């Protein structure tokens, strides 16, 4: 990372944490970040290309974390995520859609991939998103959303064809849309050692919690002693200190990067 230098133990400086997002297409990864970073929601969010690198500070009791959030940039479409994506990530949010059973299976395979590829101390949170679609209190909201945006229509149509038996009574009982029971996902998360939340990027439910709980669980001392790479010794910390930041000595006026 170009900002290794910032990681060194200056107490006032926020602690830099790289967080990666994973999950099937259209489960709401980008929407979760958008809610967290800007407290916004877009009903018709395009599949992600473009914005793929966001930062957000998170204050927690005595310390400030600065999340550097990496979105997949579509490279997962053909399972072509680069090892660089996982490299030195201290946290991951693996997202599935509570109204789509297959998306949990996909999430499980991402967790496996993380456990294989990423640093062994990585904190992984599992997020069951779009819970607004299945909670009674927001049922009206959910149908309102469906009326106001085509995507959700499509979404529901998808699910309807997937599980035709559940069509009946959907309007009165939003739980009918649910394909992933909460306790099933919770059981899996506990077994796999993951943080678990049900979230809605739409209402904001559970979003801030994901990031604060991750912040609590991250082994900060470890980060301060040397960035990421848990399988390396503390000497890797020295390596980080030795690291060259290309932006630092870029000729004045030509430096294009604002960060």
């Amino acid at each position, binding site marked *: 990372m*170009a900002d290794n230098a910032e990681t060194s133990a200056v107490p006032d400086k926020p602690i830099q944490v790289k967080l990666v997002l994973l999950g099937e297409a259209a489960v709401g990864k980008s929407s979760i970040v958008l809610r967290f970073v800007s407290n916004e929601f877009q009903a018709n969010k395009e599949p992600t290309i473009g914005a793929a690198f966001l930062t957000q500070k998170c204050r927690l009791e005595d310390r400030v974390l600065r999340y550097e959030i990496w979105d997949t*940039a579509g490279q997962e479409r053909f399972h072509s995520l680069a090892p660089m994506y996982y490299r030195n990530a201290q946290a991951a949010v693996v997202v599935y859609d509570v109204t789509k059973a297959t998306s949990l299976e996909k999430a499980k395979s991402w967790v496996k991939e993380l456990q294989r590829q990423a640093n062994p101390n990585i904190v992984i949170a599992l997020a069951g998103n779009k819970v607004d679609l299945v909670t009674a209190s927001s049922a009206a909201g959910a149908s309102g959303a469906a009326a106001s945006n085509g995507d959700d229509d499509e979404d529901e149509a998808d699910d309807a064809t997937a599980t035709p038996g559940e069509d009946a009574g959907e309007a009165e009982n939003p739980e009918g849309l649910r394909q992933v029971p909460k306790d099933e996902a919770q059981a899996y998360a506990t077994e796999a050692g993951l943080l678990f939340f049900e979230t809605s990027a739409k209402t904001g439910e559970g979003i801030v919690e994901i990031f604060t709980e991750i912040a609590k669980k991250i082994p900060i001392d470890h980060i301060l002693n040397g960035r990421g790479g848990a399988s390396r010794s503390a000497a890797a910390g020295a390596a980080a200190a030795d690291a060259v930041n290309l932006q630092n000595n870029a000729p004045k006026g030509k430096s294009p990067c604002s960060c």
Partner: protein
Amino acid sequence: MDNPPEHWDIAIFGTGLSESILAAALAKAGKKVLHLDENDYYGGDSASLTLLELITWADERSKPTQQKADQTSSAYLLAQCKSFIDIQYGFPSSSDEATPDPDFMKDSRIYAISLLPCLVPASGPIITSLIASGVSRYGGFCLLNSVAMCTPLDDKRPEDEWELKRVPSSKEDVFKDRSLSLLDKRKLMKFLMFAASDAENPPELEGQEETAFLDFLERKFSLPKSIASAISFATAHCSHIADKAVPALQRLQRYLRANGRYGNSPFLIGHYGGAGEISQGFCRTAAVQGATYILGRKIEAINHVPEVPAATAAKTESGDAPKGPHFSIRLDGFANPVTADVVVSTDSYLGYLNSVENRASLEPNSMTNGAHYLIRGIAVLGSPIKFASAGANTTATQEEAGSSAGSETNPPEEAPGTCLVVFPPVTFEGKAMEPVSALVMGEVSLSCPTGRYVVYLTTLFKGDDSATSPPNPSELLQPYLDRLLRFTSGGADSKPLFVCYYNQRLSSALGPISSTGSGSTILRLNSAPPMDAPLTEAADGATTEAERIFWEIMKFKTDGDQDIPEGFWPQVEQDGDDSTGVDEEW
């Protein structure tokens, strides 16, 4: 897979450094890019691999000769088997040399072993591109800590003792170096002043176009052979004993200027294996700009379609379909072919081309060109190289000249985290040997576990004609590795944990790519490292090649209604176009 038909402006085959830079630049320029690689990892011939991946890489490229009939060998692998030959590997320190110690393999993933080891000059095309594209945010670098020369104590007897001596990296170092006589220092400073000057057509260079750099240094600047040799091979990084003065001086000038930009070395080393990691950074940037990535899929064919059949044209009114001549690419497991106007391919994928007119012109012109190779070795050592630290005197040269035993009285030693050891050309058993370089990377490069050192040995073999085959890489390089081991804290008796030797063919000049008509074209991208200074010029060379292809495409693709971009990388908007840096507290 039931994929919908989809059309791209450009399909790029191979995710090596050059191809990846190109993909990012094209995507940033607004082109719709499809980027493919038959390997399931990024980086192609410049990949950084784990130990296990490297072993698979080696096995795949050495076996197909035995299983020719085997249908599983792809055209890509067959081409790779011609590019990477005589591959052999082993585990010398293991009880059974052919089988690794399981403890050693446990760390496989911590290794990032580079197929394109490089030293990146601190200023030049690749650094400019890393900064201008924003890719520098994704990857880190460290400085090359030291450069040393390893020379025989007696030139006439290279089979005897060799010594390791640090090469000064700055003028101050030259002053401090007590092994240089005052007169030599003066001559050296005079040369360095000359090399660093901007003067156009300096008189010293008049009529020297054909002079070898070594001769030039000895004759024009009266430098003693040892110093001339250090300048040629350890400072200008000449790869050949007869390298010419002019290009060597141009390189040297760039390196002298690069020194100091990021610290006391002209060269940077990329973390996690360098080129492979940088390739991934450019690919990510391309993806962020909308490029599509398909890795690890076998390619079945690349067909040129000179005309769109009327029926298809009518069917695909989506605007996302080819409108004229194009390439149709069949991928294993894809129901529909994908299409692109322009194909950019490295040599390894040219075998998939069907029915392209003038295909012959794409094939290596092996009859007329000599085949050149880089002879490469990779070794993992369990202890660092040690030598006298900066300013300190060298071991054996003065007080105890000739004595090889004394180690107690040695001045302070350093075990640099990264270093380059250069063996100048010698005549060994009547055979003239080219210079050999050994790039040593420790943990600071984040490419190996604590206490391990990855050594990359490289030397050039120039074949007179394509019939000359290169020497056995292990026979040639192992004596150099043994020499190096004497200078590790483990000593001469220590054995490497892993070695791998191979010969990498440098592509010979190919005929120019003929355009396949007005609507579509195929361009051949040369991804091979350069013959001159392969270590220090590979990354910049890859960038220059990407830029060349970029402009070819821009010229070709501009049908009047598009603007040719002003630069290789777009001017940066105030905020950086893909980094929405919302930095609020809550």
